[in-house]
């Protein structure tokens, strides 16, 4: 986690404003960090209303706990962690269709290590499947992944955070994140490939 720079006057001012519960500081942070946090929550939740609710909840929670902000990270990092947590809690509470077992979506191999069955392939779907339909397919497939795997894809592939940042939000090591992301991508590939094939005109 990147610590607050003691020489950065803006960061110091924000930290002091937070701790003293200064209204103008709060508003500045909502305006400055709100857009990027909303985007992250959209990626994670794939639902506009839920993302907005989670953002509101996150800012409320941040402001209520502002006096406890110790400056061990930048203010933006601290807010991102709170917003991600709010999103993850919503993801966990959500009534969803049963998650697919990840194992059944991973490739299978013969004893000699070669593919046990041909994996479905696709040809240039980006050029041929309508963007809205593609979005619907991706959302539906993400919905079927276990939440920890979905969160890994949301942070790395959708939000394009680097491994260190994403691992820190998920509270796992970078190595563990890489393994999780790799499995999640394999599963997403297995879900999407046949559906994209069906959606091709």
């Amino acid at each position: 986690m990147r610590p607050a720079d003691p020489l950065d006057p803006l960061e110091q001012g924000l930290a002091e404003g937070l701790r003293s519960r200064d209204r103008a500081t709060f508003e500045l942070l909502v305006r400055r960090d709100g857009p990027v946090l909303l985007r992250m929550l959209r990626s994670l939740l794939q639902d506009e209303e839920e993302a907005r609710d989670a953002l509101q909840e996150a800012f409320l929670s941040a402001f209520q706990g502002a006096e406890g902000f110790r400056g061990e990270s930048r203010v933006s990092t601290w807010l991102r962690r709170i917003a991600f947590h709010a999103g993850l809690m919503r993801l966990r509470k959500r009534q969803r269709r049963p998650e697919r077992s990840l194992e059944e979506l991973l490739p299978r191999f013969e004893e000699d290590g070669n593919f046990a069955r041909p994996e479905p392939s696709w040809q240039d779907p980006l050029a041929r499947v309508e963007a809205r339909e593609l979005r619907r397919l991706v959302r539906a497939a993400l919905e079927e992944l276990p939440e920890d795997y979905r969160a890994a894809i949301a942070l790395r592939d959708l939000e394009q955070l680097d491994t260190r940042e994403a691992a820190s939000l998920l509270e796992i090591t970078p190595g563990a994140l890489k393994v999780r992301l790799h499995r999640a991508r394999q599963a997403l590939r297995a879900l999407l490939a046949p559906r994209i094939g069906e959606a091709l005109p």
Partner: protein
Amino acid sequence: MNCEHFRASIERCLREGLGPEAADFEAHARDCASCRQSYEAHREFCCRRFVEELDRFLEQELDPAGRALFELHLRRCPPCGDYLEGYGRTIEIAHLGCGGEAGPDCRELPEDLLRRILGGLGDPA
């Protein structure tokens, strides 16, 4: 056959067989432990290992020897070529399908949401 020739022939050997050179190839593999090891490593690089190392390949984390093995398998195994293609497409599609859309309109919060958040905070002081 010397070591240089042997190593240059491994790929062809695995892909097409060696024909008349097979006896020389095998003789060198018997006599040279280092070349034998290299041949075994190439031969044992299966689809499972390809899939396991795919992410490290894309992130450019494989060392030169590991990368060479990976690329050799990629050249001689069409199903793995398809798998890699689909894997790369998945990342691209996930980003374009669901991540990219949040970009351009996201420089400012929608006004109604901004009011809702600030209004919901009450008076913090």
